[in-house]
């Protein structure tokens, strides 16, 4: 009932186009996360949906109704802002009650709604405090509480966790996950630049790059089957390695020439790719030392031991190996990977079909 549909949405500020050709359908009750580097237009997209910015062209539908010109108040949307945007001159109770009071809701019902939200978010002790007397985490919970009391059909979160320190961020992430579980019938759109947040919270992720949608999919889809080099490197940490290669033969079997060796992959590529310069993508966690020629070879420059894993750097390539591997420092190493975990990119786009997901 409260699905959100964006059709060919574009947005310009002055002469600058910040969003272009956005087509997106958010199912009712879904938690969609929009990720992308800073400046990719993700906050603007959220503000368009909320009605805080006019849409330059395209169509926005919420719950089956065209919403382009409908004022914000009638869209049934609540938004949680990055800087919380609490009303500094009102205490927590008044902050949460404001929207209901505007809507003319009776005193008793406001009181009930505020108390319920406060209990849900563990804010009962600070209802009479002012925002300046709250910790960052509490402010964020008040901002969420303010959204909850309105019982909106759609929640918009604009980087709600990025002003919190790392420890608190983890706790609040869980809190949002719990909230989503409890309000499973509400549609939520969550904007972040933190891929960890995206991977853990999302039903589906939208990756935005340069004002366009790079890829939409379930979190593991994006991790395992990135359609572009951008998505491949944006999702996953450390970022996917790209190894330059030349295609010797394309078709049902792909042959590549690398700096170290030539390899064959039993996965199809477009036949006209033969002779092209491509990038072979492989994630650091999929590399392992091997006796054979491998995919890359070189002297280990730096070993970053993180305890649980070690990051091995050799000539611009990073490998993530289990355990503490400081013994590898300065050694010459050959690294190899399971062919199922290899990706191939030509001009930024994936050109090798992925294996069916297991």
């Amino acid at each position, binding site marked *: 009932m409260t699905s959100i549909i964006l059709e060919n949405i574009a947005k310009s500020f*002055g002469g600058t186009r910040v969003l272009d050709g956005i087509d997106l359908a958010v199912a009712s009750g879904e938690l969609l996360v929009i990720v992308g580097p800073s400046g990719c237009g993700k906050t603007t997209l959220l503000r368009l949906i909320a009605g805080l910015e006019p849409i330059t062209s395209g169509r926005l539908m919420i719950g089956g109704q065209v*919403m*382009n*010109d*409908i*004022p914000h108040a*009638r869209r049934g949307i609540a938004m949680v802002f990055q800087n919380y945007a609490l009303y500094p001159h009102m205490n927590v109770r008044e902050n949460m009650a404001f929207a209901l009071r505007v809507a003319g809701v009776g005193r008793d019902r406001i009181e009930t709604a505020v108390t319920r939200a406060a209990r849900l978010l563990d804010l009962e002790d600070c209802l009479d405090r002012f925002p300046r007397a709250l910790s960052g985490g509490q402010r964020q919970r008040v901002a969420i509480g303010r959204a909850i009391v309105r019982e909106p059909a759609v929640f918009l979160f604009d980087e709600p966790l990025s002003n919190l320190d790392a420890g608190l961020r983890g706790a609040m992430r869980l809190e949002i996950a719990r909230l989503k579980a409890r309000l499973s019938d509400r549609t939520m759109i969550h904007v972040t630049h933190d891929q960890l947040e995206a991977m853990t919270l999302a039903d589906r992720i939208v990756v935005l790059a340069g004002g366009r949608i790079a890829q939409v999919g379930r979190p593991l889809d994006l991790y395992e089957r990135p359609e572009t080099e951008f998505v491949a490197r944006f999702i996953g940490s450390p970022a996917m390695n790209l190894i330059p290669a030349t295609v010797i033969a394309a078709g049902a079997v792909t042959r590549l020439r690398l700096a170290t060796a030539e390899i064959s992959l039993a996965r199809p590529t477009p036949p006209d790719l033969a002779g092209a310069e491509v990038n072979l993508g492989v994630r650091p966690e999929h590399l392992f030392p091997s006796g054979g020629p491998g995919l890359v070879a070189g002297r280990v420059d730096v070993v970053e031991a993180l305890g649980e894993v070690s990051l091995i750097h050799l000539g611009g390539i990073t490998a993530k190996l289990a355990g503490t591997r400081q013994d590898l420092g300065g050694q010459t190493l050959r690294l190899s990977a399971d062919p199922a975990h290899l990706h191939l990119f030509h001009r930024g786009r994936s050109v090798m079909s992925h294996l069916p997901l297991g």
Partner: protein
Amino acid sequence: MPEALTLAAATMLSVLFTCVAWVWGANRMLDLIWPATGRRAGRNSARAGLIRPWLFLGPALVFMGLYLVWPVLRTGWLALHDATGARFVGLENLRWLASDARLYEALGNSLAWLLVVPAVSTALGLIAAVLTDGLRWGVLARAVLFMPMAISFVGAAVIWKFIYAFTPEPAPEIGLLNALVTAAGGAPQAWLTRAFVNDLALMVVVIWMQTGFAMVILSAALRAVPEETLEAARLDGAGPWTIFTRIQVPQIRGTLAVVWTAITIMVLKLFDIVFVMTNGQWGTQVLANLIYDWMFRGSPDAGRGAAVALVLMALVTPLMIWNIRAALREERA
């Protein structure tokens, strides 16, 4: 007095009430004419959104239009008319102005003021800002330097006229300046009636009043200079003077310009001090006082007064344009 009090209360209440009633009522009207509900909700709210800002702007635009924009244009029109504004005389007033010795005296003085006062006030303000920064009693010192800001030009005129007071000998000098001069063995002077010296004497008063303004703004600007840049320079071996001229001043150049312009505009419009202390006699005439003379003194001539006023407007215009461009640049950013 009681009637006046009633009038004051009634005026305040009625203007405030009218203003609120207008904005509230007009907003309601908009919501009634184009309700944001129903089938045409989108189009209606878009239309109401076009008009709503002007409801908020309305009262202010009416006031500013009636009390600033219209009279300025009207004065331009008056400049083309005779003394009473009855007969159109074309460029007659401007032609007369071009050969009027008093205009050139006023222009010359205004030029001298423009060269001296903004520069000295800004420089003194900068020095005061630097010297008092971080001083334990700096707050107190700044309050003292800033204090003349609260005094009227007329009050300042009394204060300084007393400094410049002149008593012919043999009675003792009670003006501080002449007392100092006589103590040093000189002869007391009537400072305000000696050409050129009196200009300087008046400028000192305005500098005394404006330095605090410059200091306050520059002091804030200096404090906004990132401490790290100063520390980096100190680590690079720069001395206090180098740090001041090479690190601090370049970073507050914009603020210096703002202060300079503000004082320049103030000086161009300078009226009270000259009007009260010398009334433009003994070679101290300035534009604003000349305008007042023509408009309200002796046998007033609105046409000529307006013509001189246009000269003042012409001098202010470049600064006005500079201000507008700065504002527009900010608006776009």
